[in-house]
């Protein structure tokens, strides 16, 4: 119990600081509070259903399925699966990290999950539409087109390094 309270301590201090700032009209704290709200609003809505889906994934999806699509036998298809999954992951990397961890423990290879996480931060569909409308379609097309080969190359380098060192990702229960 004591440990749990400690984990939330910084958060409580922050909330108290923001609360007091609003009472005494301290600009700095009010700004922080507004920034907090912008992100917290989305996270509160996205994380619970996302984690329920991860839980269901854990109990239903078999190791064989994941090995077949994200493992070594999958060949080049695994990158297409990884990028496809990334493009449809709501919440970007915040959701992609736990998903990648779950995939890994079901037999996904390093290059698949690194491709997935990296692509999840770069390929958010609603964001890309907004980007294209402000910076132009050429810019968005270039950014996405250039990133695919770079992501896959770096994912393979990382895979090589991790496998060589027998690295394994932490198991999160």
């Amino acid at each position, binding site marked *: 119990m004591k440990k*749990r309270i400690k*984990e*939330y301590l*910084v*958060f409580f201090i*922050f909330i108290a600081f923001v609360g007091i700032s609003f009472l005494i009209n301290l600009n700095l704290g009010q*700004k*922080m*509070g507004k*920034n*907090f709200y*912008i992100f*917290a609003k989305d*996270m509160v809505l*996205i994380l*619970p259903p*996302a*984690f*329920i*889906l*991860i*839980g*269901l994934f*854990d*109990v*239903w999806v078999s190791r064989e399925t994941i090995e077949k699509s994200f493992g070594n036998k999958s060949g080049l298809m695994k990158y297409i699966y990884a990028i496809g999954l990334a493009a449809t992951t*709501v*919440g*970007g*990397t*915040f959701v992609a*990290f*736990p998903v*990648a*961890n779950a995939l890994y423990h079901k037999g996904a290879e390093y290059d698949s999950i*690194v491709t997935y996480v*990296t692509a999840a*931060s*770069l390929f*958010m569909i609603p964001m890309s539409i*907004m*980007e294209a409308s*402000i*910076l132009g379609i*050429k*810019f968005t097309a*270039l*950014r996405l087109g*250039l*990133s695919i080969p*770079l992501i896959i190359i*770096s994912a393979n380098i*990382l895979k090589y*390094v991790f496998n060589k060192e027998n*690295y*394994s*990702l*932490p198991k*999160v*229960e």
Partner: protein
Amino acid sequence: MKYLYIVAAIALIISFIKDKNKTFKGIKKGLLKFKKILPKYLMLLVIISIVLLLSEDFIIKYLSKGNILIGTISSVIIGSITMMPGFIAYPLSGVLLERGVSYIIIGGFVTSLMLVGVVTYPIEKEYFGKKATILRNIFGFIIAIGIAIGIGIFYGEVL
């Protein structure tokens, strides 16, 4: 976001019809994971709220001057240490563009903003371990520079 709820609802219904107990086990597992990581997410929100104080004005002022080389490097560094949602980042990039900032600098900023997460380190570390997190972010930094240079070449700003 709506679609996440629809997918979750459909998955729950199908799962429930197929096997009630397994469904409860799945929900419990998911929520347990969520409970465990929640303080880290809150911590992250606190850090982001403070980092975002590095205001838009500062970024506009800083990236609007100087030459292309220094501008690109600083845009990638600023993008790496900050974190902001797209609906703030893109209008900000629009302002930069209007002020005549090159595409290569905007590309470096936008890409590293998404790709390199200095502030998301506490979360990523939980799921990837320290070493993988650090390496992945270093590669993210390199990729961001690569993408920026590529954009610069296509817009005829370098070479």
